[in-house]
C-alpha cells in the first residue's frame, strides 16, 4: 500500500467525519430558536416535562455560546469535538455526555460484533452451500426460508421474538443485559447470564441479516462455480472440501467483504432500534432515553458516534482489503 493511497483514504475518513459533524451543527443551528429550547418545547408539547428546564436553558445558552456569532460558535463546537468534549448530559447533570455514551459503548460493540460476525459467517456459508454440488437440498430451502426475514425490519422481528420467547414461553429474559442485582465477575455464571440476555437481541439481528448475505452469496457462488480455476482445481483431484474453502469461498468472499463495509451503516441503525426493544443498555438505549428527556448533547453525541463508527469500520475494511486480494495494489 502506497503512502499516497493511505493518505487519500485517511483524508476521506476525516472528510466524512467533518461533513457529518458540520451537518450536525448546521441542523441544530438552523432552528428558529436555540436548539435546546426547541427540543425542550417539543418534549413539553408531547406532555413530557423536563425538570429544571429553565436552569438548564440558562446554563446552556452560555455553554453553547449562543450569543456568539455563528462562525465563532462553529469553531467552538469543532474545537470541543476535537478534544472529545461532547458537553454535559442534561439528564444526568453534571455527568458529561461522552461519559454516558462510553459507559454504554461496550454493550453496543459486543452485541453488534457478535451479531454481525455470526450473520456474516452463517449467511455466507448457507448461501454458498445452497449452490454447491451434492449438498443436501435442505440448504437450498434454508436460503428460501431466510429470504422473508431479510425483507422485514429487525426491530419488528425483535418485537415478535420478545413476545414468543420471553413473554409467552419465558425461555429468555424480557430485556436488559444481565439479571439486575446479580453479582458480576469473571466467571461462567456471569458469562451464562450475559449470553442468556444477549440471545434474543443477537438473534433478531442475525435472522434479519442472514438472508441478505445468503442471497448475495448464492448469486456470487453460482458464478464462481463455473470459473476456470474451480474446474482446474477439480481436474487436479483436490478434495471437495479444500476446493470449497480455499478456491471457491476464498474468492467469493471478496465482494462480500466490500458489501460488509457498505452495509455497516444499516447494521448500526438497526442495532440502535433493537436495543430499544430489548432495553439493552447500549448506545441505542441511551439515545432513546436522551430523546425522551430532551438530552440534547447526548442525542448529538450518539449520532456523531454512529457516523464515527461507520466511517471507522469502512476505513478498517478498506485498509485490510488489499491483504485479502493480492491483485489490489494501491
Amino acid at each position: 500500500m502506497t503512502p499516497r493511497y493511505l493518505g487519500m483514504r485517511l483524508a476521506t475518513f476525516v472528510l466524512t467525519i467533518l461533513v457529518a459533524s458540520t451537518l450536525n451543527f448546521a441542523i441544530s443551528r438552523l432552528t428558529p430558536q436555540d436548539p435546546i429550547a426547541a427540543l425542550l418545547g417539543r418534549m413539553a408539547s408531547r406532555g413530557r416535562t423536563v425538570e429544571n428546564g429553565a436552569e438548564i436553558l440558562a446554563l446552556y445558552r452560555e455553554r453553547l455560546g449562543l450569543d456568539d456569532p455563528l462562525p465563532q460558535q462553529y469553531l467552538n463546537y469543532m474545537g470541543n469535538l476535537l478534544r472529545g468534549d461532547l458537553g454535559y448530559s442534561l439528564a444526568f447533570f453534571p455527568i458529561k455526555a461522552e461519559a454516558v455514551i462510553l459507559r454504554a459503548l461496550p454493550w453496543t460493540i459486543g452485541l453488534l460484533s457478535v451479531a454481525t460476525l455470526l450473520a456474516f459467517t452463517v449467511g455466507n456459508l448457507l448461501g454458498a452451500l445452497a449452490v454447491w454440488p451434492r449438498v443436501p437440498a435442505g440448504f437450498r430451502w434454508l436460503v428460501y426460508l431466510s429470504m422473508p426475514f431479510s425483507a422485514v425490519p429487525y426491530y419488528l422481528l425483535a418485537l415478535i421474538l420478545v413476545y414468543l420467547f420471553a413473554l409467552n414461553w419465558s425461555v429468555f429474559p424480557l430485556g436488559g443485559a444481565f439479571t439486575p442485582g446479580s453479582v458480576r465477575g469473571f466467571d461462567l455464571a456471569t458469562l451464562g447470564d450475559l449470553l442468556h440476555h444477549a440471545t434474543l437481541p443477537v438473534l433478531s439481528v442475525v435472522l434479519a441479516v442472514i438472508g441478505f448475505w445468503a442471497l448475495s452469496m448464492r448469486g456470487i457462488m453460482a458464478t464462481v462455480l463455473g470459473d476456470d480455476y474451480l474446474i482446474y482445481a477439480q481436474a487436479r483431484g483436490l478434495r471437495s472440501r479444500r476446493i470449497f474453502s480455499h478456491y471457491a469461498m476464498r474468492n467469493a468472499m471478496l465482494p462480500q467483504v466490500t458489501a460488509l463495509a457498505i452495509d455497516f451503516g444499516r447494521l448500526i441503525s438497526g442495532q440502535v432500534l433493537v436495543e430499544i426493544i430489548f432495553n439493552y443498555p447500549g448506545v441505542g438505549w441511551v439515545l432513546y432515553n436522551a430523546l425522551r428527556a430532551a438530552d440534547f448533547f447526548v442525542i448529538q453525541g450518539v449520532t456523531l458516534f454512529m457516523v464515527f463508527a461507520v466511517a471507522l469500520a469502512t476505513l478498517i475494511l478498506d485498509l485490510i482489503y488489499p491483504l485479502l486480494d493480492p491483485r489490489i495494489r494501491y
Partner: protein
Amino acid sequence: MATMSGQARESVVVLAVEGLSIHYEMRAATVRAVDGVDFELRDNEVLGLAGESGSGKSTLALGILRLLRAPGRVVAGSVRFGATDLLALDESALRELRWRQFAYIPQGSMSALNPVMRLQAQFRDTLTAHGERMPRAAMHARFVDVLQGVGLDADLLPRYPHELSGGMRQRVCIAMAMLLGPRLIIADEPTSALDVISQRVVLETLAAARKAIDASMLLIGHDMALLAQVTDRLGIMYAGRLVEMGETGTLFRDARHPYSRRLIASVPDVRARREFQSEAMDSEPQWPLDEPLQEVAAGHFVRPWGGGYDS
C-alpha cells in the same frame, strides 16, 4: 499398424472413447456439442484433434475428464481409461485417478490458476491432494524441477498468477500437468492465448515435457501447422463429429473429406483463419454427417459426404 493383432493392440490402448454424445440442454434449445465420437489413444501416442471454433473439442475434453458443468451432460457413450470405465466411476475413486493418471491443460490457462493463491500453494495443493507427504525442501525441489522442465525460473513460486505473463501462466499449467507424471495428458489449445512465435515455443516445450515422462496426449488445437509438428495421428472434428481420422502424415498428404482439406489448406495466419471459421460457422452443416466412418486405408477413416474419394 494394420498388421498388429487385435490382442496386442488392445493392450496398449490408454483411452478408448466410444459413441460419446454430449448435449447442452437449455430451455430454449438443445446443443448437440459432441455427437457419437469414437477414438482410441495408444500408449505414448500424441493424438491431435482439430476443428473450427464451436465444433465441440473442449466439450469432448471436459466430457472425458468428467468436468462438464450444467447444462452439459453426457447422453450416450463410454469412456474407458485402461480397464476403468471413467463414466461409471464414483467420485472418490475418480478423484484419486485425477492428475496421477490423467492431467489436463485447460483452454483457459489464463484464468485457470486461483487468483488469490501463490503458485507454490497451488502446486502444494496438487501434491497433498494425492497423499504425497514429503519434507518442504523435497517438495520445493520437485516444483523447481517441473518448472525448469518448461523453462521457468524457481523464483516464480512465491508469486501470484496475476504477476505472470500469459505465456508464463500457460507454462505453469504445463509444469503442473507434469507434477505427478501422469499416463495421459489432455491439452485443450494450450497455446491459444499466445502470439505466433510463443505458440511454437510453448508447444515444443509441452511436447518435450510429455516425451520426458512417456505420457500419451490428446492435443486439441485448430492451428493445423502447429498440430502437424507434434502429433502422431490427427482427428478432424466438425459439428460435434469426427469427419476424418488418420496418421498425421497421411492426412496432410491425402486428406479426403472436403472439410479436412479446407482446414489443412487454411494458412496459419490469424486473419485468414478467422474468415474461414466464420464462413463455416454461419451455415448449417454442409455435409451429411449420419453415415458411419469408413476405413479408406489402414488406420485412415473418413465420413462419407456424398462426393468421391479422389485425391
